[in-house]
């Protein structure tokens, strides 16, 4: 297979000087290259923020531990949260959207390739600004002064009285700049999906991945805009004498909370919906069946998109809203559980009666299903305002959202990487290393995050750099930390697999998984123009129709 691989211009890079190659990557407007840049950039930040998490876990292994100082600990959890959400989660999902959406809808690029490059470099600048705070926040003599206000940066802690120096400014600017990048990418994804589909690809024939990314991009527009506005208001407060959030001058701390969470909760769905998209593409292929209930999956996603815009104040069940507001946000939050449940049932329906192949991508999908089920149920508990008055701000919440973001998003991203790596690089990832990675990560994940619920139930608040012995938290925290290191070992194996397989992996061929969507009809990696001739589709699974002309999907749709 390798000997007759198609020769394409990009393959010749070895013979060019490295400066030319670098120049090509920096100036590229190709959606695939930008997708890869997004993914590599996000993986870098995954490692950085992962190391921050490990230091946090070393500090919390024992009560009254002195591994890091309180100030350093607060900076670590602020940087860990901000990095993981804004510079790992969003970029890696945008990267996959960039790479896959045009290929899956039969287009040659995104609708606005230059805007695409601009958005990526803005996001990259955001991440750089955040970490530049390490040297720039207090001038060079104050090296090591990263933001320490928490990733949601509640007012008035961000006021100049409580956050002198520039660390909070770097945090604000990082989010402001990357927010513009996110909005640019969202506009691009929407325009691409609505305007660039190949002939025959009606909206109800789009792969679910395209549908879900359409909903995600719409949510980015609605959710990131208020966050960006709030960052401007914070800058006005800090430098132009504004009083939006300055409580000492009659400003409102509550206003910031509303602004932040009307971004912050949809953000969670912005992160998880693309992972739902991975599930909806990968589970059918490895179950050898079409997705169960395609129209219902689309409807449920759109429904999640709308309802999730009205749930933000469930992050504020302890701030003293009246009983009617608390009841309202209880019912809307629980209501999101219904379409989310429908999705889990539909994936189950897809597996039901299939012939499940336990390839590494599918293993991560199965892990995702189990974990997302639990994350959803603890979400229902947190949605109950009365129960949440005990659970919120405790380690139970930390366990819950890591269950969604690690058990959900990270497992989803791993599944996607194992599934599409052959398409992106032309080589298969090593299956044995992949399984080792999966099992180690699964064990580490459960050791850490299953147990992490309990200290919360036993009264341990989040964001504390140390804790009192004798409250039943000690052994649990030690085990949680051990689990964190097991996950870190698994990630090292994963990165090794990425590198080794890039050079030594089995050649993938166009369609290693015997899949059904358009990206598998072109070469691996695809040429710059994606398709020699624009495909024409007649159903949701064009490659199924091609492989099974006697029984095409187009007969049933």
């Amino acid at each position: 297979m390798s000997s007759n691989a198609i020769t394409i211009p990009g393959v010749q890079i070895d013979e060019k000087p490295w400066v030319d190659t670098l120049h090509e990557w920096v100036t590229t407007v190709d959606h695939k290259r930008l997708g890869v840049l997004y993914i590599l950039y996000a993986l870098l930040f995954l490692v950085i923020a992962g190391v921050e998490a490990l230091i946090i876990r070393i500090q919390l292994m024992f009560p009254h531990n002195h591994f890091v100082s309180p100030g350093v600990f607060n900076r670590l959890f602020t940087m860990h949260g901000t990095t993981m959400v804004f510079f790992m989660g969003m970029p890696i999902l945008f990267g996959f959207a960039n790479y896959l959406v045009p290929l899956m809808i039969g287009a040659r690029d995104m609708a606005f390739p230059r805007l695409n490059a601009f958005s990526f470099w803005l996001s990259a600048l955001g991440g750089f600004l955040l970490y530049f705070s390490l040297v720039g926040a207090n001038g060079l003599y104050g090296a090591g002064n990263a933001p320490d206000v928490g990733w949601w940066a509640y007012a008035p802690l961000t006021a100049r009285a409580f956050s002198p120096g520039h660390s909070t400014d770097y945090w604000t600017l990082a989010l402001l700049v990357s927010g513009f990048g996110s909005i640019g990418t969202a506009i691009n994804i929407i325009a691409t999906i609505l305007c660039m589909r190949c002939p025959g690809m009606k909206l109800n024939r789009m792969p679910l991945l395209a549908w879900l990314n359409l909903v995600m991009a719409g949510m980015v527009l609605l959710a990131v805009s208020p966050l960006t506005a709030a960052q401007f208001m914070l800058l006005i407060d800090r430098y132009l004498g504004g009083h939006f959030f300055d409580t000492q001058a009659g400003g409102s701390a509550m206003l910031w909370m509303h602004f932040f969470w009307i971004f912050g909760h949809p953000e969670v769905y912005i992160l998880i919906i693309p992972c739902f998209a991975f599930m909806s593409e990968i589970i059918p292929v490895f179950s050898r069946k079409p997705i169960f209930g395609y129209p219902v999956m689309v409807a449920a996603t759109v429904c999640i998109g709308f309802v999730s815009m009205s749930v933000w104040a469930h992050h504020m069940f302890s701030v003293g809203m009246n009983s009617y507001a608390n009841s309202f946000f209880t019912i809307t939050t629980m209501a999101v559980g219904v379409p989310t449940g429908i999705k889990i049932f539909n994936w189950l329906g897809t597996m039901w009666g299939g012939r499940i192949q336990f390839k590494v991508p599918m293993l991560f999908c199965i892990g995702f299903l189990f974990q997302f089920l639990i994350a959803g149920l603890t979400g229902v508990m947190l949605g109950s305002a009365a129960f949440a008055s005990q659970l919120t701000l405790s380690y139970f919440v930390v366990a819950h959202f890591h269950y969604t973001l690690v058990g959900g998003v990270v497992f989803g991203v791993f599944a996607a990487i194992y599934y599409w790596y052959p398409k992106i690089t032309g080589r298969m990832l090593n299956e044995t290393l992949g399984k080792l990675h999966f099992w180690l990560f699964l064990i580490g994940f459960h050791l850490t995050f299953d147990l992490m619920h309990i200290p919360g139930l036993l009264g341990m608040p989040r964001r504390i750099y140390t804790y009192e012995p004798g409250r039943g938290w000690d052994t649990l925290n030690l085990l949680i930390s051990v689990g964190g290191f097991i996950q870190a070992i698994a990630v090292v194996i994963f990165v090794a697999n990425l590198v080794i397989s890039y050079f030594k992996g089995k050649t993938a061929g166009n369609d290693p998984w015997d899949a059904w969507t358009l990206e598998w009809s072109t070469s691996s990696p695809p040429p710059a123009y994606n398709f020699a001739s624009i495909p024409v589709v007649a159903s949701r699974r064009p490659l199924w129709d091609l492989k099974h002309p006697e029984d095409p999907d187009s007969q049933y749709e």
Partner: protein
Amino acid sequence: MQRKQNSITLSALFMLALLFLSLATVAAAATDPTNGTNIFAPASTPAKMVAHLSVFVLAITGIIFVVVFTLLVYSVIKFRGRAVDAGREPAQVYGSTQIELAWTIIPILIVIVLFLATARAIHAVQDAPEPAGAVEVTAIGHQYWWEFRYPKLGVVTANELHIPVSDPANPTPTFLTLLSADTDHSFWIPELAGKTDLIPNHPNRMWMDPLRTGIFLGQCAQYCGVQHAKMLLRVSVDSPADFAAWARGQQQPAVQDASVATGRRVFESNACMNCHAVAGTNANGRFGPDLTHLMTRATIASGAATNTPENLRLWIQDPNAIKPGSLMPAMKLSDSDLDAVVSYMETLR
């Protein structure tokens, strides 16, 4: 394939085992009276209402978990690909309206039930009327300590809240008004009530009616700055007689003891009195805790250390040794001044 089936089953068992281990730990902790911060060991009406609702929500979600988990494990094992099927595709099924309706309507009904149960608990906790015998306390969050004021009793204290036990037949609940002097904080005594934040410019209310006497622990739950972790809370629930005696003691001005006049002079001629108050003297600063009856408290530095002469001495000389980042400055006193101030503090009963 047999091996794969085994590994899937094993991982499922592993997860179940962890889950049971978790539940067992909570159950064990719930029966451990020394723990003191368990949300499933409630000792007052609002905490009990929340705990009862919690058990109900846990039961419903537990049933959903068992059902869906079983279905997932079953389908993963039952529908695994077998070597004999190689090359053959299973029946292509696209969906089923009846099934979709079923798994839409049933969750909606569950959500309605959970919502009604929650709304009932929210109303009962948040909208409870304040009875005539209620004790009023104003709690003010500071970086990184708690100020407690009893406006009806004329008492000001810090970090250790005293409230009376409440007899259900003749309730004397405590109603707190929650304020903040600087950043956001959150008042959380897990066994007495859910948490409520202290937010500047946004007064909040909460209440608790402890049903037994004893010491209840908690701490600030809303990140408030560098020493958020050592903003501990200690609530002493007293019998009505003990509470009355405690309040009478707190209403007295500070003990005047001529033998520690040197220490008092050091206190009043240094920056101490800018931040701390001692009733009956010229010291009336309000940035730090009121010290009038310091020796009636079991801890100093908002629970960061026990109230011993050695700790007091260390705290005054180098607060960062106990609580790095605390707003108390290091006083840099000479040894003799330090001894004198500590002796003075020890008379403040």
